[in-house]
């Protein structure tokens, strides 16, 4: 079990991590997401005992991460974001060295190690310095898992891997989770969290702005359905139950429903003659975007109340700057809806 209490480490007033509080229970996979420079790696380095927190305490299985790092490491596997190994060593030599550093000498059981090597297709001949970055990452994964640790701390483990290996790694994470392991997976890819994690924490500028399970996050999602009707539908009825819609043509609509009201939508639509009913799946990323928009709007409203002159469209904290455009689509859609209504 991983536990962080009020963990703070300031590099400067905006850089660092601030008052982090979260737990990862045994048998749980925790997705730790956030943009670059949010402080994910800093947090993980603290868990590894490489950095001492300025304030607060981080523990793994009840042991202090900084002062009892060596005891923790007995049962922990860590894949760093940036893999740096001993370049002048051969692969087999390195694996043996790490095994020995873990206090295992002489005849040892290498079945798990060999199966991991096979699974991730690690080239065991040759020197580490001649390996590609992806291969180094795979080697780091083997090193982190070959002693069958109880806790897994993975810092962007899929970066630098090809899609096949990414998929294999995520499968492995799922398997390990089912075996009761505690997993902390840091990433900026939402689909990885979606696929493997039970809970997700969002880090932004050093603050944990969200910590919730995937199911309730899903409930907050607005689902979109592409519907084709045989006859013009009863739009009044749809509106009455609070569903938004977008009309493309006489018979084609996109209907929006909150994640927890899909059953109501089904009932409403059961009175219509529906030809096609396709769900337009939203990724977690889009859900986050919506989620954020709410929060940001909320904050803005507060600010505006306090100071009406502040026009802070540009001061909006940007979580995922590149993806902002997608996000703006929603208010536009609303506009369209209202236009349709007027028409």
């Amino acid at each position, binding site marked *: 079990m991983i536990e962080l209490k009020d963990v703070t480490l300031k590099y400067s007033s905006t850089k660092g991590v601030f008052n982090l509080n979260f737990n990862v229970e045994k048998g749980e996979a925790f997705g730790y997401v956030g943009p670059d420079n949010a402080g994910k790696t800093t947090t993980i*380095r603290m868990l590894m005992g*490489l950095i*001492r927190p300025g304030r607060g305490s981080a523990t793994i299985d009840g042991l202090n991460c900084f002062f009892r790092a*060596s005891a923790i*490491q007995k049962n922990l596997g860590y894949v*760093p974001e940036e893999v740096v190994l001993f370049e002048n060593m051969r692969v087999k030599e390195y694996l043996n*060295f790490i095994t020995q*550093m873990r206090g295992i000498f002489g005849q040892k059981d290498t079945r798990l190690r060999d199966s991991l090597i096979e699974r991730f297709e690690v080239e065991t001949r040759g020197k580490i310095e001649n390996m590609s970055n992806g291969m180094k990452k795979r080697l780091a994964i083997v090193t*982190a898992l070959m002693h069958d640790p109880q806790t897994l701390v993975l810092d962007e483990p899929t970066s630098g891997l090809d899609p096949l290996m990414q998929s294999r790694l995520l499968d492995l994470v799922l398997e390990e989770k089912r075996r009761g392991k505690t997993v902390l997976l840091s990433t900026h890819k939402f689909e990885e969290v979606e696929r493997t994690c039970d809970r997700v924490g969002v880090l932004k500028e050093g603050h944990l702005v969200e910590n919730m399970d995937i199911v309730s996050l899903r409930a907050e999602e607005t689902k979109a359905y592409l519907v084709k009707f045989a006859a013009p539908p009863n739009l009044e009825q749809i509106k009455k139950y609070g569903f938004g819609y977008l009309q493309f043509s006489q018979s084609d609509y996109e209907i929006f429903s909150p994640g927890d009201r899909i059953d109501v939508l089904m009932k409403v639509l059961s009175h219509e003659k529906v030809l096609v009913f396709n769900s337009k799946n939203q990724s977690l990323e889009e859900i986050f975007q919506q989620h954020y928009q709410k929060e940001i709007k909320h904050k803005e409203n507060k600010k505006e109340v306090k100071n009406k002159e502040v026009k802070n469209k540009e001061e909006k904290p940007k979580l995922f700057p590149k993806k902002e455009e997608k996000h703006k689509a929603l208010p536009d859609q609303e506009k369209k809806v209202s236009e349709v209504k007027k028409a």
Partner: protein
Amino acid sequence: MSIPLFLKNIKNNTLLLLVFAVLMSIYLAVIIYIYDPSGVGAMVDMMSILPTALVNAMGFGTIDSGLTGFIASLFYGFLIYLFPMVYCIILANRLVAKWVYEGSFTSLLCTPNSRIKIIVTQGIYLLASIAVLFTVLFLVGYGMSEQFFPGMLEVKVFLKLNIGACLMTMTIAMFCFFFSCLFNSTKLSLFFGALIPIGFFILNTLSKLSERTAFLGKFSLYNAFDGLAIVNGQANITLIIGGFAIFIGVLFVAAVGVFSMKRLPV
């Protein structure tokens, strides 16, 4: 101490040790070879060509007529500062700061070994390799002397000379090691690791130039070791050994302390 790590250090750094051991051995062997038991006349003649101040600075001011004294003044007076100093600077940096800077130190700390254990292993390797270096020198010196001038070397004094020089080098090494543990970048580690011994060396050299600069020697660690004084029996070898040992101990503890509490770079 971690045995696999110690073995890895041996594998990584033996070439460096070998280079220095061979260079210094050749130098020592040549010095013994050119010794002329009938008198050091030729050598004195050669020195008289050079300016006195320079000769003094290099520690060749007084040339003892005995073989042990000859070795002490020509080898343990000047070169013994330079060669091992370079070795210490390079090795101390390689053992800690270089790995920390590159990031591979993380893979050591992600094994169930405490920082203290790992850093103590590195420190022990540093000290052990210096001990090996001086053992080689002692054996080469002894062997060469017995080969060319049997019975002329005062073995006990020569041994004292080596032990003194060895401990002095270890002290210098510990200074470098401390900075290697303190800094996360090789640049700073090398800068301070080199600054201190070179500073000592310069102060020591300047102090020998003239009477008026003699006080500078008080600030140099190298002044604590005087090869000729050991040969003449003027120096208290126990005091020298004890003093260096305390220095080594304090610096080692400081290095381990600093390293075990510091934040490693992200």
